[in-house]
């Protein structure tokens, strides 16, 4: 028994020292506890909505990560190749366009993209929920993928300065293979993975924010009915907003604190899921960078 305790203690200490794994476990653990609490105390329709909103948010954010990765890798590759090729004009055109996208605040670009989605929905061109969510993810990734390109360019430029790059070229290995396999896959995949974790957090933040803004500010028939439920749109609902107001109420009236976990569960859960997920993803990303000494 004593040995078992020691084993558990050693294992716990090892997990605690690897902050990314520790926070991943904490995230899952707290999410499970929140789910159990909600099953016990939240009414069924509201619980279904919260679960649907959370899963949709995760789905869109995961899709943003995948799309940003694909777009970033492909365009980053073109930029890296054009930079040293004789097609310098293509390099300047590409970086010029990328810099223009960078100069548009993400939130404005995504908001305009969402306006396009609502137009497509009203014109009955876009009606499948999965397709709508995929389009939402594509729009968000268009304003995030620049981060992947920056990383790829930074890594390629770093390795280009080293001897092995020229040595491989002299050996007749194609530049595509050197960049894709030797630089990005063999020597940078941990950096890319770390960037993708950070992008996952940004995607959740941007998506919740834009859904909240659309639901509060542009509460047209389309946005309230046809857009898929996400944590952001759930938070904008009047009952959720009242639940959030109750949190402020406890500051002046601390005895009300116990009520918010029973009577205002929907809004509090949604707000908690957003904030805690953002915090956990940040901690995981930091822990991952620390563990791999990035």
């Amino acid at each position, binding site marked *: 028994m004593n040995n078992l305790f020691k084993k558990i203690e050693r294992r716990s200490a090892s997990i605690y020292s690897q902050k990314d794994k520790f926070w991943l476990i904490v995230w899952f653990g707290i999410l499970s506890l929140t789910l159990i609490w909600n099953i016990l105390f939240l009414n069924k329709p509201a619980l279904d909505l919260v679960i649907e909103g959370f899963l949709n948010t995760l789905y869109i954010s995961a899709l943003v990560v995948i799309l940003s990765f694909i777009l970033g890798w492909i365009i980053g590759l073109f930029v890296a190749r054009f930079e040293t090729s004789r097609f310098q004009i293509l390099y300047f055109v590409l970086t010029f366009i990328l810099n223009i996208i960078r*100069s548009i605040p993400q939130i404005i670009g995504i908001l305009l993209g969402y306006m396009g989605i609502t137009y497509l929905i009203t014109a009955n061109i876009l009606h499948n929920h999965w397709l709508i969510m995929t389009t939402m993810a594509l729009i968000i990734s268009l304003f995030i993928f620049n981060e992947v390109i920056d990383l790829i360019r930074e890594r390629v430029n770093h390795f280009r300065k080293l001897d092995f790059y020229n040595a491989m070229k002299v050996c007749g290995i194609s530049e595509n293979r050197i960049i894709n396999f030797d630089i990005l896959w063999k020597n940078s995949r941990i950096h890319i993975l770390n960037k993708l974790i950070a992008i996952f957090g940004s995607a959740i933040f941007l998506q919740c924010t834009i859904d909240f803004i659309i639901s509060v500010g542009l509460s047209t028939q389309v946005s309230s009915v046809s857009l898929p439920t996400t944590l952001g749109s759930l938070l904008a609902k009047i009952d959720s907003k009242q639940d959030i107001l109750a949190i402020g109420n406890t500051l002046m009236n601390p005895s009300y604190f116990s009520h918010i976990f029973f009577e205002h569960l929907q809004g509090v859960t949604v707000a908690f899921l957003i904030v805690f997920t953002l915090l956990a993803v940040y901690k995981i990303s930091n822990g991952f960078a620390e563990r791999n000494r990035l």
Partner: protein
Amino acid sequence: MTFKKKILEHLLSAFLITSLLGTLLYFTIEKKNIEKIQSNEKIESYLGLSFIDFENPFDRALLLDVLNAYEPDQTSEHETLIRTIEQYRKSSLIAGMEEAYRKEPLSSKKWQQLSLMYAKFILIYMFVMLLTYYGVQTFGILRFVRRQQNQKSHLLCFLQQLFSAPKFSRIKDYLKYYLQAILHLIKAVIIASSYFVLFAPAYVIAYSLKTQLNTDTIFFMITLAVISNGLLITYTNKFYTFLVAESRKGYVQTAIVKNLNTSYKQTDKSGISYASVFSFRKHFPMHVFQHIFLNARYQYLQTIKEQASFLISGLIIIEMALNIQGHFSYELLKQLLYKNYDIVIVIILGIFYMVKLTEIFTDWLTHKKSLKYENIEPVCAK
């Protein structure tokens, strides 16, 4: 890329976007004017007859009789026409009332209003930028100093004190010991809560405080922009990472050998005092940290462009999500809703110029510092 080339690229992109949005603005205004003219021409020609009062049923009946007398084989069409004119008058009256409320031309008065909102937006942005610039460095240094002092997390201290309590002979000692443990717990709870606040999107904090505070004030907006949306914590962490990376470099060891101060205790005379950490112009004379700080700050300067873009997004989020009337981004949201696309284009152009100016300023600053520290052009990711 050289500094001149960078500036040229910024100016070129500003010119391109201005031309693109300017053309779009021209066509939007033209389209608005054409829409006004192209309302139902046939009905408008009847409504233009000055001797007929369409409010009067007698006049309407008279027009129907005249039309029937003129074209006797089209009586049913004439009746439909009179009904259509009636419906058109009603709907155009309602639409007119709605449009008077929603449709706004890009008049000189509107330009004036937008300019005022823009000036306010820029002022708030500059103020928040200054505060975050200070906050990022201050909190980054505090965290670094804590690390150098080998301070453990308060939660760990609490757990350690709880599970490895020594045996005391007096109750007073027990009380003192557990009071210290509880103090650690309270500090841990405060830090955890502040993490939640720092990561919370601005609208979550604002809505939770809406009943207790006036959330429409500029002061509240600035505070919210600094602490929420993960801005402060993200860049504090970035700055802290730069400090840690710099502290591992070889020149730090050389500086220690050359007898520079290395103590990070606040109580030491040669240590890092709170006054120098919290001062706006941070200076740590004769301390090895001075060099770590300067080099880390130089790297941090290169990320300001990214931070500024993040901050502008944050400000837009706050103004839009809180529906703060009379602010630039709320105006953008409102005009999008009312489909006044000419005003939307002007607002987007304004925000784009601000981002571009920040980028130019940051490039200039980095260039200036690189001349001072490296004597060469810095290599940027962009």
